[in-house]
């Protein structure tokens, strides 16, 4: 079985701030990390590899420094890595990104399973997985909370809204996984050493045979016009004060007045 895991380098959301003067994102001093949900996708691939045997290829699109998350993927047990890096890929929305990822999957070929984290913590779109499946013309299972492969089908549970679905899709297929699907492992020193010897590819648009009218900014129908911080609240708050019993009387009076009781 050949498994492709698609991962992304994202800014640590705890660090993200807007420059108060320019209104742009402050990038200096912001740590870059592996998108946390992508660790669940990698762990999922590792469990399948342990159970059934598999070649696992980690793929990421980004600038040269995005190679850091691919190194981590190799240290976590992936067998090969592909960095998709080209100035022509910059500024991509999810349509252009998914096109580029699909071209990489085509170049690798013979894939059985494409794994994605449910969403990336920077854009929060959750679109790239299903969109990549659409470019490749293969089925998809989104929001998987368990995953197994049986007789050429991938079987998943999905906990959605008020129900739990069990679904299956014929390989090759794409699956996006939730954070509840597993507990990601940490890289071991032995695996970090092993990772140094694994094949690492860097591909540009020409290597992928990608049409650069469909990548990066030219291939992106949507664009960000402005970014700003959400407005802060300034509601007039009515406070209840006194002993706990006095507060409780005022509080329950309020609940009655507001018809909450």
């Amino acid at each position, binding site marked *: 079985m050949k498994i492709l895991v698609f991962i992304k380098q994202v800014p640590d959301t705890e660090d993200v*701030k807007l420059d108060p003067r320019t209104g742009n994102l402050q990038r200096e001093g912001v740590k870059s990390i592996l998108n946390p949900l992508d660790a669940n996708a990698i762990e999922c691939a590792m469990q399948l590899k342990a159970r059934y045997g598999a070649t696992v290829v980690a793929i990421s699109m980004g600038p040269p420094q995005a190679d850091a998350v691919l190194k981590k993927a190799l240290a976590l047990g992936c067998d090969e890595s592909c960095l998709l890096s080209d100035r022509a890929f910059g500024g991509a929305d999810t349509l252009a990104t998914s096109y580029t990822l699909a071209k990489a999957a085509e170049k690798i070929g013979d894939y059985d399973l494409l794994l994605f984290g449910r969403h990336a*913590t920077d854009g929060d779109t959750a679109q790239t997985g299903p969109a990549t499946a*659409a470019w490749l013309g293969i089925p*998809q299972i989104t929001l998987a909370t368990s995953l197994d492969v049986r007789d050429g089908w991938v079987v998943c549970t999905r906990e959605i809204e008020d*129900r739990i679905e069990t*679904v299956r899709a014929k390989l090759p297929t794409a699956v996006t996984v939730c954070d509840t699907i597993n507990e990601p492992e940490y890289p071991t020193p032995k695996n970090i050493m092993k990772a140094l010897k694994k094949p690492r590819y860097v591909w540009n648009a020409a290597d992928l045979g990608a049409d650069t009218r469909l990548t990066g900014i030219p291939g992106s129908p949507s664009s*960000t016009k402005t970014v*700003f911080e*959400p407005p802060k609240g300034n509601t007039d*708050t009515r406070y209840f004060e006194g002993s706990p019993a006095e507060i409780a009387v005022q509080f329950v009076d309020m609940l009655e007045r507001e018809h909450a009781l």
Partner: protein
Amino acid sequence: MKENYSGIWIFAEQRQGVLNPVVFELLSKAQELKSVTDETITAVLLGSGVSGLADELIARGAERVLIAEHEALSVYSARPYQQALTQLVERYKPSILLYGATSQGRDLAPRMMVALQTGLTADAIDLGYDEDGVFFQATPAYGGKILAHIVILEKRPQMATVRPQIFDPLPPDSTRRGEIVTETVEVAGDGDYEVLACAPKPEGTQPIDRAALLVSGGRGIKHETDFAMLDELARLLHGQLASSRPPVDQGWLPHEKQIGQSGTTVKPAYILNVGISGSVQYQVGMQNAACIISINHNPDAPIFGISQYGVVADYRKVVPAIIAEICKRKA
């Protein structure tokens, strides 16, 4: 050419013949957008044996209902739905196409983006026209710390998934009139995707997003057992227990209970926040509650900035007193 596209379309998500409430919220917002551009509002209904839902869509603000029925559409599956909807869009050329950011909408819309080669904004929390008359979608990024205005300048339709519980639906009005159009579509069933089983979630894990009252606990809750106290208060008020992210990360409550950017967006009539400071990520998920009441020992907690009522105190003293007072009045 984008000039050839007009009209606002709402994807009328249904499951087992029941419309998702987000459809009514989107129809209501479409009425507001129409006041700017005077575009026709169309609800697009896919399924099998669902034409009876058309009147409900009209009563909620649709001026036209497009119905495409096919056996392959009886249970939702991404590829048959994408085929059917793509054919309708290519036939009618709407300018805007909106989906609820539900599990179904978020499954279907990215495939529509590729099929139609247009833009798709994820998880919008507002829609409107900016000073240049350009349609924008406001969407949170970086865990809700930042809001972005996204625009789709050249490609059509302009598409977005929109968060449930953001816009108020119009009350149903059976005197509204609308056109019902039945269309045929050519759809191949998807033999490569199958729903094997579907079961309701176990009792006690009912979704928090449709509860009228929530009692929500956060990082300030010191002990797992204190959630039993909050649960008791929720039950006394005929509401449900919810939480911010830290208690879920602790493993004290399941993820279904989590309000916020990485959890569920809620819009209850009442929310009681206990031991919640009010991070941006949390506020994004509950700021549209009609009545916000907060208990926190820290007078500077940001949650008070959006609360109508506040108590600055130790919840371990105040909450038992409130429970006792309610029981006294009920007796």
